[in-house]
């Protein structure tokens, strides 16, 4: 017999495959967990359409819940409401910073932003300098932009508001 609390506890130990310092729960993609006897249904809202981690995440969820004693695990996809970076746990945002990723600096905007050739500088997550430049709108994953600090010369990533 697996309770919903047991299932949530197991899921809290499933890291995001691209950003392992945060769990899939902290990322805000696990929307609902239902248990019935020894079977569990997990409702997941995917991040970007092109995120290659989506299938790995479903596998990791199944594995973690099986390890916790679930006999049958169903992972359901729910598209609406669409995932937003506003759902990222604030404590996890701080952890992102400590591993060199600047968390979203604003809440996701519903409107269209003007096109900026030179965006407003972000604070470097390593040295704090605001003497930073954007290298590309898309970094190692679709959810992050690639930046560089002109003072400490280190590259860093920015988790874009979505």
């Amino acid at each position, binding site marked *: 017999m697996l309770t919903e609390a047991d299932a949530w506890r197991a899921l809290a130990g499933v890291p995001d495959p691209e950003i392992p310092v945060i769990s899939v729960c902290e990322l805000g993609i696990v929307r609902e967990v239902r248990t019935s006897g020894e079977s569990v249904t997990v409702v997941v809202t995917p991040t970007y*359409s*092109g995120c290659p981690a989506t299938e790995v995440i479903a596998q990791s969820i199944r594995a973690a819940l099986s390890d916790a004693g679930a006999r049958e695990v169903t992972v359901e996809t729910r*598209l609406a409401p*669409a995932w937003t970076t506003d759902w990222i746990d604030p404590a996890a945002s701080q952890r992102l910073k400590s591993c060199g990723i600047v968390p979203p600096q604003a809440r996701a905007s519903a409107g269209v932003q003007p096109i900026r050739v030179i965006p407003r500088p972000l604070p470097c997550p390593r040295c704090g300098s605001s003497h930073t430049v954007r290298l590309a709108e*898309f970094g190692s994953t679709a959810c992050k932009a690639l930046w560089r600090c002109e003072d400490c010369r280190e590259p860093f990533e920015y988790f874009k508001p979505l």
Partner: protein
Amino acid sequence: MTPQVEYLLRIGDSTLILGQRLSEWCGHAPVLEEDIALANIALDLIGQSRLVLTHAGELEGEGRDEDQLAFLRPENQFRNVTLVELPNGDFGRTVMKSFLFCTFLRELWAALASSTDGALAAIAGKSVKESRYHVQHAGQWVIRLGDGTDESHGRMQAALDALWPYTAELFAPTAVDEAVRSTGAGIEWASLRGAWEAAVLPVLRDATLEVPAPSTFLSRGKFGVHSEHMGHLLTEMQYLQRAYPGATW
């Protein structure tokens, strides 16, 4: 084929084919950062296409899934607009094409987020957020290269001259659009022209580029009549499933 399925194929095929074109840059872009950016955008477009084609296959009810629709249809059954199948050309032409199409797509997704087709509305509500970043990416390159050196300006003007005539197709009225609008499942693409121009023209102006004079040319990809480039693209994209039917890995 019902108008609703046909309407979905126009969207699913256009995102798929642009995604396929952009992925050709993987390993070839001028700088590593842009290589990664173009590949990420291609992944988003193909991801959007997968959702739309899956939904189209379900509505069609003949048991075709996303893979069968993408890999086993012949050229004349594809409903993508011709613009997206045109060869990439240089980096400037590639970002110009992305800018013109992705701005249209952003407006389309925004409108479809309130579709009476719940599945389509969910896909649109999610995709519009991604499209905003695609437009940002392409738009800032259009400005940077257009308002850049003589060389980059010349290439961007040539790109605009070559691609602009193909944008007329986006807004060509069709019976499919009308049928889908009447059920509330979609909107007529022609109705997006004003919003598209309001977004595109100021960027082209900032890029110091001149919009070509209107012409009577009308490409017909969304009706299944494609350019000579489409067959070559499909030959590569569909090769594996054609050679090894049902192959998985």
